[in-house]
């Protein structure tokens, strides 16, 4: 029995029952442990049969009545699973070793069968779900469709066919339409706590439900589109933020560069402007003046020509009119026709004239505005010219006192020249040293820049490497954890299963050999007893025969003398006494056997702990009575 207990305890621990290590056989199981193990076993069995079976409690509540109810339910479930022995609440509440062993053995056996079969099913189920490749899906679907019979189109509303399981199959295109998503407006009340009042008003009173915003287009398509757009916007916003964070330094650099380039550009512009200013001499000024005058004149001529053109047109019409009037003499009808023609023409010309005059007005206006702009420019030019003229006047004044002034100027020029030469020399010295320094510094800077670039590249590389390594690491870690999990489960299942199996087979082999040995012994004993019985029978036969002969001999002798008679009587009495003795012996041995049987029974009963259990039952009864009284009291008080 120890072996069985070991197996049961092992499987109980493997399904997660809290069996203490010092519990080695079922006799040591207490009520709580039995309830817990039975409940977990039943839960597992039921779940493997039907996945949505109700979970049974693994611990009993304190209330005795509820305890009884739960235990009867356990018993019922066990019987429905096919447990054949007697079973009731007492088996759980007032357990004895043998019964609980039988029950646990049955349940453990049942569990192994169920879990194995259900595991297989689960495995195949998940396998089909995950490994169901596209081909299989397609095959399944087409097979389903191939088994369908045809239905005429007027019986299918919207070209849809109602399937048995309330789903629709598309057999037509009547209800199909292009994905016509329209833009819809969805308020944003819940996310923003503070909303403008007018916005809130709008959402409350004027915004339509989305189902009413899309009567002509497709609502779901519009929603999907809107959602996608929103998400794209959100994502891009997030990205922009990130970019801002990352590129602050870069941005500053770029800004600085931009500033520098602007400075350079401005300097250049200034230089160019200076050159131009230098180039502007008096002659140029005169030329510019002339140019502007010419321009004015040209413009005037331009205007004139246009006027002339229109005038010409008018004149020609008049001429033609004159010609036609000359021709009136020929015929009046012609005249009238021609007059009509002429009138039409006149009207046309008038129209032309009007349009032309309009044009002229336009042109006039444009040119006037142009000219005003030019005038402004001219005024500016004039100012600069006036300044220059003032300068010239000064020089002219100087020229009045020419020879003296020239001398003075020459001296001054000489002085300035010498000064200038000195300064130039000094400047050259300075310049030379500064130049050298500058070159050295520039070289250094370029060196540093190069080095910096290199370092930046290196860091970039390192960063990418780090990132790669990180992602690698995380993926590998994930992999490791997965694998370790798998490993654990594998180890668990492997060890428990294989050890169980090996253990079982070993035990079975041992038991088989034991049984064999025992059978042989029993056979031996049987043969021995048979031989003894034979001997016994032979002996009794011999005895009887001896008795008969002696009886005859003594009986003959008894007739001869009195003493012989006494001898015969004694002989008979001895015989009867011995018979009695034998009977007694048989009876005592029978009693002995009965005695032994009774002792065995006593032992069995004593194992059932009847005294204890009766005590327990009495206690429970008391408790129930108490509870009932309490409940009655409560009822009364409530009433």
């Amino acid at each position: 029995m120890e072996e069985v207990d070991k197996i049961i305890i092992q499987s109980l621990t493997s399904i997660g029952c809290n069996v203490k290590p010092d519990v080695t056989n079922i006799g040591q199981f207490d009520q709580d442990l039995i309830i817990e193990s039975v409940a977990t076993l039943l839960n597992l069995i039921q779940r493997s049969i039907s996945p949505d079976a109700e979970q049974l409690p693994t611990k009993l509540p304190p209330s005795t009545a509820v305890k009884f109810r739960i235990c009867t339910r356990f018993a019922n479930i066990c019987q429905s699973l096919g447990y054949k022995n007697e079973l009731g609440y007492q088996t759980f509440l007032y357990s004895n070793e043998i019964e609980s062993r039988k029950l646990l053995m049955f349940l453990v056996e049942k569990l192994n069968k169920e879990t194995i079969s259900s595991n297989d099913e689960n495995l195949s189920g998940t396998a089909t779900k995950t490994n169901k490749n596209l081909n299989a899906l397609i095959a399944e679907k087409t097979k389903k469709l191939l088994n369908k019979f045809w239905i005429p189109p007027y019986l299918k509303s919207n070209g849809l066919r109602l399937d048995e399981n309330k789903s629709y199959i598309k057999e037509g295109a009547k209800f199909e339409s292009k994905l016509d998503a329209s833009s819809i407006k969805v308020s944003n009340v819940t996310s923003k706590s503070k909303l403008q009042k007018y916005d809130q008003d709008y959402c409350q009173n004027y915004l339509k439900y989305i189902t009413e915003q899309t009567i002509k287009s497709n609502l779901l398509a519009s929603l999907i589109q809107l959602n996608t757009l929103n998400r794209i916007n959100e994502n891009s916003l997030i990205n922009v933020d990130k970019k801002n964070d990352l590129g602050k330094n870069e941005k500053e650099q770029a800004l600085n560069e931009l500033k520098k380039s602007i400075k350079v550009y401005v300097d250049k512009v200034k230089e160019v402007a200076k050159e131009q200013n230098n180039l502007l001499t008096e002659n140029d000024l005169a030329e510019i003046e002339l140019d502007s005058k010419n321009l004015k004149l040209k413009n005037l001529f331009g205007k004139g020509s246009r006027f002339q053109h229109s005038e010409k047109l008018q004149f020609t019409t008049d001429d033609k009119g004159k010609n036609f009037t000359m021709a009136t003499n020929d015929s009046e009808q012609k005249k009238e026709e021609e007059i009509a023609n002429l009138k039409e023409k006149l009207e046309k010309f008038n129209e032309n004239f009007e349009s032309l005059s309009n044009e002229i007005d336009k042109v006039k206006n444009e040119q006037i505005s142009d000219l005003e702009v030019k005038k402004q420019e001219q005024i500016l030019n004039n100012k600069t010219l006036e300044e220059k003229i003032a300068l010239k006047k000064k020089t002219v004044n100087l020229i009045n006192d020419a020879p003296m002034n020239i001398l003075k100027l020459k001296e001054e020029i000489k002085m300035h020249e010498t000064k200038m030469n000195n300064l130039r020399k000094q400047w050259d010295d300075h310049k030379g040293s500064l130049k050298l320094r500058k070159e050295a510094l520039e070289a250094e800077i370029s060196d540093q820049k190069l080095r910096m670039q290199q370092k930046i590249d290196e860091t970039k590389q390192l960063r990418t490497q780090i990132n790669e390594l990180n992602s690698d690491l995380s993926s590998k870690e994930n992999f490791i954890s997965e694998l370790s999990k798998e490993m654990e489960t594998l180890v668990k299942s492997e060890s428990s299963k294989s050890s169980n199996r090996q253990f079982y087979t070993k035990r079975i082999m041992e038991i088989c050999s034991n049984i064999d040995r025992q059978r042989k012994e029993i056979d031996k004993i049987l043969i021995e007893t048979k031989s003894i019985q034979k001997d016994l029978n032979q002996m009794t036969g011999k005895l009887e025969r001896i008795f008969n002969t002696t009886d005859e001999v003594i009986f003959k002798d008894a007739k001869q003398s009195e003493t012989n008679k006494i001898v015969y009587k004694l002989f008979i009495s001895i015989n009867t006494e011995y018979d009695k003795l034998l009977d007694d012996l048989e009876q005592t041995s029978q009693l002995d056997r009965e005695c032994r049987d009774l002792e065995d029974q006593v032992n069995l009963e004593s194992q059932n702990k009847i005294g204890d259990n009766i005590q327990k039952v009495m206690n429970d009864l008391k408790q129930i009575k108490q509870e009932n009284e309490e409940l009655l009291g409560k009822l009364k008080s409530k009433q």
Partner: protein
Amino acid sequence: MELSSNYLSALKHASNDDLLSFDSFKLLIKTIFDSFIINSKLGKLNPRLDPKILEQINKSEAELKEITAAFYTLLAELARHDVDVNSASTFLEDHGFSNEKIKIFTELYQEKLQIIRLFLSSSTSSFPHIVDVSWRLDYCIKENNLERINEPIYLIELKLEVPGQSNLTSLKFSCTVEQLQDLVFKLKEASKSVEKLAQIS
């Protein structure tokens, strides 16, 4: 499957039992799911919601409008990705819905998923769909220009459903026996190849 933040905030709002009671939630969800009805009168499959039912919910209309929009989008996206009931319920759980609300949602979702997918499948483009065929066998005897022709002629009419049109259109053509043999042979080939598809395992 992702939703934009404004919808998520609306869902969060709806998940809060203080802001939207279970009964209101139930009514709202039920009306939304019930709006997915196949109505043969409308040419299009478009859910229609009766806002009057939602007036029973004690909530500002602006918020209701947004929550309905969020739920419609949620349903559209869930069904679009063919998300199963379990994943849908975990999604709701992640967004703080109570078990009661999740239960009512998943029950209705399971019931209506196929119909919502049907609604989604309606916005697609396809060729005219053959739904029926009728044929006539003629024996041509005489024509105005040709006598004694004596040739059987089949007239075949394919009935077509054109997307977006409620009436059937038809394509009629004639063919000789040889041409019909050719046609039937090709159709049989197509049928066979479809049957082969079903046998791939």
